[in-house]
């Protein structure tokens, strides 16, 4: 019997790192205790994505989650929040789909070109290193994202977001493109 059955017990919680790698790049890393295929499934199958993509503390719920996971295919996530009149959608296109190691998509909510997200899944001895890489179209775009988002990060409490649009915009890696 595996003693790690209870998912509440999480003694080997791995740490998440985030770094601005260059003028135009943000990189997030995390290791998971499972094979790449499972991670890839969790990033691509709507019924799984819906269960983790939106942190619970945001109080946001999925209205729909559609993923056409193939090169050139599109995705569309629609969310609602109690204090929002209109639902918000995140949309984009998959530029590259290589199961189970690599996934590249665009973030197309705004009017200007958005960032491109590349996720790689590197499996080693049953563990998988996940690297989320966001490439912004320009230094300015990332600077703007940071400038517009910084007021809304209030340290530990995501609940303290007071403006819903800011909250939702910041959920996407592509935080720079606030709707005009």
């Amino acid at each position, binding site marked *: 019997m*595996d003693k*790690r*059955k209870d*998912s509440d017990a*999480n003694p080997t*919680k*791995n*740490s*998440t*790192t*985030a*770094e*601005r*790698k*260059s*003028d135009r790049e*943000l990189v*997030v890393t*995390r290791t*998971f*205790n*499972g094979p790449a295929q*499972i*991670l890839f*499934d*969790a990033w691509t199958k709507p019924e*799984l994505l819906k*269960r*983790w*993509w*939106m*942190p*619970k*503390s945001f109080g946001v719920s999925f209205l729909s989650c559609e993923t056409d996971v193939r090169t050139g295919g599109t995705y569309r996530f629609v969310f609602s929040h109690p204090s929002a009149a209109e639902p918000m959608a995140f949309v984009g296109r998959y530029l590259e789909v290589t199961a189970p190691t690599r996934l590249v998509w665009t973030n197309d909510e705004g009017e200007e070109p958005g960032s491109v997200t590349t996720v790689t899944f590197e499996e080693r001895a049953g563990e998988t290193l*996940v690297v*989320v890489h966001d490439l912004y179209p320009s230094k300015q775009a990332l600077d703007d994202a*940071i*400038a517009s*988002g*910084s007021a*809304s*990060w*209030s*340290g*530990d409490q*995501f609940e303290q977001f007071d403006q819903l649009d800011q909250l939702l915009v*910041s*959920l996407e890696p592509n935080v720079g493109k606030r709707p005009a």
Partner: protein
Amino acid sequence: MVQYREPALDTAFSALSDPIRRGVLEQLGRADASITYLAEKFRMTLTGMKKHVGVLEQAGLVSTEKIGRVRTCRLGLRGLEKEAEWIEGYRKLWAERFDDLDKIVEELNQKEKTHGQKKR
């Protein structure tokens, strides 16, 4: 700890490599000052001082603000601090997502194990 991106550090260090610019930082540590004042204080031309302030500004060490005809300089690490804070917020967002993802991975791992055992 959030790591500052290296290019920013390089710029900061090269900005600090000049004794005049270090002097300017020291001066601004005491009080905000106009470029004209700094030029006089360090016995430089206005153009020369503008260049130095430009380098410090580029490195995020000094910020300037033009009010009327006077450009006032002040110590300004704010850019980097803000960025570090934002990245930490961004990291926490992902960490929270990933904690939920952990549970799914765990669950699927279990499923796969059970499935595998049945096959054998």
